[in-house]
């Protein structure tokens, strides 16, 4: 392998690999694992159940090394493996007609779905949650949430062109809301504005049920030419595995697995901080760098690094490829030289990407990353072994079938239970409430409505978002949906709306999910666009609670049935479980994003009055 760190990097000099904490001999190698089968391992602290740990031992035919344990634990977490939701999410792929999928270039399962919008253009979009980190550290949590979803979009080969945010907070007059709301809003504002992505819409909702568990769902949109489509797979033995972007540090180690799979109080496996700090400048440079790499046809496969970092990127790229992968972990550029191999495998440092590059194109690749001052390191190459092999300090510390890590994780068909409280809640209907008919009472009611946080003007939030940048925003605040011009010559455009109503879903998750879909669909249609695709972010309590699991199953079924009825496919999305305070789950909150297309944005329909004298009509029932 030729020289690795090619970029003439301004910041700190490369850390000599040998200065790490682990002294020689303490590396838990594969050979060591085979020789010490009885060593106790902290699988439970890493979030693995005893049965899961046992099946790892069976898969490997020995105990896992500590590095392998790190990888399996993060990749088999609820957050990364979808182990409780998979059996239900399948419906999105099954309840489809050929008509629905004919414009889908990439469907569920990839980083983000890709829709052919005509004229050689394609659009990719996805909505994702960053709920728990945004409660702990609202500014950085929300900021890195935007960063993560935008990297998903870049990794499809697209230029990110817009973001949206769907937010749910606790009671507006709770003291902690005053900490969370400004932090979240300025985090989103900071990161997306610094990336130069217009914010074209979103939602803001206040309800005490979200007090200690706000929902921060961010959506990103990307645009690409058909031929620029890229996928996360590592093909072609001998091709180089390249890590580029920010250096790897101790951020958020255990963050994803611990945060997303259990309550906050269960501290992380290490003393490392559970939060990540985002650097939107680094991400902006990474975007431009990636687009130049795509334009030069210099990458064969690409994957962003999000939760589970290098564990996820290597195992997913290798699983989706046609062979195996061999990595020297010592080649990862570190910000903190004291990191252990396990921590490097789990680190959630932001603003990193992994690419598969043909050897003949490596120099050209390094020239582009050098131009953008993006630090780059060749970690290893694609092999024919079918194994993911990782070495550290000269010893093999990971030797696994990558599919067992990334694809064939545990799948649970968890028990469901009709909620014991639901009938009582449903019986308590609004029709029982007194209906004021007197002037003063009506007046008081109207004033209360107007004064409610949920109906109030949202410009305090939207004024902190740049809606102009890129010059293609055809609709945004205060319109029902956002709209972006895709092609400056033809006027071809796309529109988006996100909607959800946790209270409806609480009363009836099946219908609630459909109402969210219908509202987003209407909002898109109201802009003049034709709805064509769906992404969703399913925010629920613990899947280990059968009543929550019932809510989840109902919501998915409702959404899948609704999509089939409306004839638009779900192209991807995100599940966020464990949204609860103590034992009290949030209201089931399936946030639905609908995308539409319009052949010329000049024909868009804004939500405000346009001209004096126009007639007013009320449509529908």
């Amino acid at each position, binding site marked *: 392998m030729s020289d690795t760190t090619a970029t003439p990097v301004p910041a700190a000099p490369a850390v000599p690999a040998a200065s790490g904490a682990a002294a020689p001999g303490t590396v838990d190698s594969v050979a060591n694992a085979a020789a010490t089968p009885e060593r106790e391992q902290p699988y439970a602290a890493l979030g693995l159940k005893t049965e899961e740990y046992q099946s790892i031992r069976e898969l490997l035919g020995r105990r896992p090394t500590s590095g392998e344990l790190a990888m399996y634990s993060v990749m088999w977490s609820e957050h990364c493996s979808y182990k409780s939701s998979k059996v239900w999410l399948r419906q999105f792929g099954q309840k489809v007609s050929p008509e629905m999928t004919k414009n889908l270039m990439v469907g569920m399962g990839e980083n983000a779905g890709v829709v052919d919008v005509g004229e050689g253009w394609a659009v990719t979009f996805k909505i994702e949650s960053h709920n728990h980190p945004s409660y702990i550290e609202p500014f950085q949590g929300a900021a890195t949430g935007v960063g993560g979803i935008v990297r998903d979009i870049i990794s499809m080969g697209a230029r990110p062109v817009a973001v949206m945010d769907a937010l749910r907070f606790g009671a507006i007059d709770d003291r902690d809301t005053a900490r969370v709301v400004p932090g979240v809003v*300025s985090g989103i*504002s*900071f990161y997306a*504005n*610094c*990336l*130069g992505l217009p914010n074209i819409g979103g939602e803001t909702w206040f309800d005490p049920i979200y007090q200690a568990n706000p929902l921060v769902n961010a959506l990103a949109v990307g645009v690409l030419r058909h031929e620029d489509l890229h996928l996360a797979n590592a093909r072609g033995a001998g091709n180089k595995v390249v890590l580029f972007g920010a250096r790897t540090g101790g951020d958020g180690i255990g963050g994803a697995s611990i945060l997303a799979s259990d309550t906050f109080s269960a501290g992380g496996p290490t003393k490392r901080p559970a939060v990540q700090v985002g*650097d*939107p*400048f*680094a991400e*902006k*440079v990474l975007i*431009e760098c990636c687009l130049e790499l795509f334009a030069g046809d210099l990458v064969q496969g690409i994957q962003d690094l999000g939760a589970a970092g290098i564990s996820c990127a290597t195992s997913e790229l290798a699983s989706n490829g046609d062979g195996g992968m061999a990595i020297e972990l010592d080649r990862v550029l570190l910000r903190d030289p004291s990191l252990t191999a396990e921590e490097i495998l789990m680190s959630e440092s932001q603003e990193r990407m992994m690419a598969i590059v043909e050897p003949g194109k490596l120099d050209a690749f390094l020239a582009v990353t050098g*131009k*953008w*001052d993006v630090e780059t390191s060749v970690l290893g190459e694609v092999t024919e072994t079918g194994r993911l092999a990782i070495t550290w300090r000269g010893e093999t510390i990971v030797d696994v079938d990558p599919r067992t890590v990334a694809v064939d994780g545990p799948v649970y068909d968890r028990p469901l239970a009709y909620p014991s409280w639901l009938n009582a809640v449903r019986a308590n209907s609004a029709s029982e409430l007194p209906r004021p008919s007197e002037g003063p009472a009506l007046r008081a009611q109207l004033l209360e409505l107007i004064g409610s946080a949920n109906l109030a003007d949202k410009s305090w939030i*939207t*004024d*902190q*978002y*740049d*809606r*102009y*940048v*890129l*010059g*293609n*925003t*055809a609709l945004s605040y205060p319109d029902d949906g956002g709209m972006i*011009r895709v092609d400056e010559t033809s006027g071809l455009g796309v529109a988006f709306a996100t909607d959800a109503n946790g209270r409806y879903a609480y009363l009836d998750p099946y219908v609630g999910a459909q109402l969210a879909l219908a509202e987003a669909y209407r909002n898109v249609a109201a802009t003049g666009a034709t709805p064509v695709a769906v992404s969703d972010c399913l925010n629920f309590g613990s899947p280990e609670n059968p009543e929550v699991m019932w809510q989840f199953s109902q919501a998915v079924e409702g959404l899948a049935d609704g999509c089939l009825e409306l004839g638009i496919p779900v192209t991807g999305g995100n599940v966020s479980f464990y949204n609860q305070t103590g034992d009290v789950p949030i209201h089931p909150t399936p946030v639905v994003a609908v995308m539409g297309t319009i052949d010329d*944005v*000049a024909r868009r329909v*804004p939500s*405000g009055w*346009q001209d004096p004298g126009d007639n007013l009509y009320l449509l529908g029932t």
Partner: protein
Amino acid sequence: MRIGVVTFPGSLDDRDAQRAVRRAGGEAVALWHGDHELQGVDAIVLPGGFSYGDYLRCGAIAARSPIMAEVIAAANAGMPVLGICNGFQILVEAHLLPGGLIRNDHGDFVCRDQKLRVENASTAWTNGFTVGQEITIPLKNAEGGFIVDAETLKRIEGEGLVAFRYLDVNPNGSLDDIAGLTNARGNVVGLMPHPEHATEPGFGPDTPDAMRSGVDGLTFFTSVLHGALARA
């Protein structure tokens, strides 16, 4: 006429500035921060964005990038230079314009359709306006508060170096409602609002006539084009 638009790492509105130049009838030339080459352009735009992440101070690191040596020399020789938002911050950090730009007084990023009054219509970038004209240009920044010591402020006002003033709302606490400045020669202009985002009907600020229809920003670019024609 060839108008260069410099891209720094973190520039965001660079392609928008190029589009505005083209809409005005000029030829847009992309310039790169790391080069020492102005490619024979006749005027330069330093676009908006967050060059180098706005870290340290907005515009501070960009003002020290390779191409700025050339830009500063050209500006001192009379070439028209327009700094928009981050570009204004870069001009201030490069000491081509006086004062400093700090965090908005309310602490937040703000995006709004901002009304301005044209105070100086004899610069390279404002000669298509008339003094006192009211225009609407999108404003979007977190660090747009203009500050300067009292003595310099007096000089700026006395010499007519205020190019634009905020009307109705002072969105960031700028002294004397200052939204933009010119140098004494009138070739270097900087302002916080974004004229390039008011150049295309349908994608600009709202006007009383129709939503998103404002194109007041186009005059910045036609001004420099006409000025060049007049000199030719």
